[in-house]
């Protein structure tokens, strides 16, 4: 939600999330290609798959990443559009699988 708190065990939080801290570099491909596997965030397991967002442009993905990384209490630095582009290219196979 707007405050980054997530919702129960359905949607994990983005604010103060250890997962985000640890998987900083995967954020662009998670947003673009979604997630099938369950993840553990702050000790709670989340099983609901996240759908891909293939209609987003690399610029939009970069903006979302930098917002999430620095919104609320988060202070996780920034990601450049070139990082995002190379990451999306590297994980393109995930998209083909979906």
């Amino acid at each position, binding site marked *: *939600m707007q405050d980054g708190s997530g*919702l*129960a*065990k*359905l949607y994990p939080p983005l604010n103060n999330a250890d997962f985000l801290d640890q998987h900083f570099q995967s954020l662009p491909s998670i947003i673009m290609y979604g997630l099938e596997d369950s993840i553990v965030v702050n000790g709670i397991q989340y099983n*609901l798959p996240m*759908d891909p*967002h293939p*209609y987003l442009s690399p610029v939009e993905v970069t903006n979302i990443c930098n917002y999430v990384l620095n919104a609320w209490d988060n202070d996780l630095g920034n990601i450049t559009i070139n990082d995002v582009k190379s990451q999306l290219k590297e994980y393109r196979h995930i998209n083909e699988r979906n």
Partner: protein
Amino acid sequence: MKNIIVIVIVLSLLSCKEEKKTLPIIGQVEIVDGDTIYHSIPDFKFVNQDSIYIDNASLSEYIYVSDFFFTSCPTICPKVKKQMLRIYDKFENEDKLKLVSHTIDPVRDNVETLKLYSSNLDVSSEKWFFLTGDKNKLLDMADDYFVVAYEDDEVAGGFDHSGKILLVDQNRHIRAFCEGTDPDDVTEFLKDIQHLLDEVKPVVN
């Protein structure tokens, strides 16, 4: 003289507002053979997250709040669900109230998926029904709740829909609604729910 009449009318309207609020019956009104026919929720039969059939009779003794969603919705559903959970939490011990969420994507949202969803939301399946069934019947049902819901490959998630939450009384009439994406609107809606509960519950002296 005219002004005085207007003032009297305005004052009487204001004084009405002070009294106990009766929620309107929402929707088109028809007069058939002198009888007033109000819009009502038609017959339905869907299955819930416990594989139990839920129909009008299952809800005839309750008032309920209703919404339309799908579990893989990437846009407004999570926001609306947060507000539905707010309603659930506020009225968790209120026996006369149920919550009814209809999926509009029954191909993906089968009983198993809805069960997982409601378990993860940590809510009672006795109080909050997640319904699935025939897709066309579910989409038609949305019409009867004045909710926009249709398949559209052009939009994120594959379905275009509105995030309204509706309040239905024991006579299948819609009595109030709010925008589930707007927390302030939901705050007002919580009051409407309490008004309807006060209306349907006999006063205990």
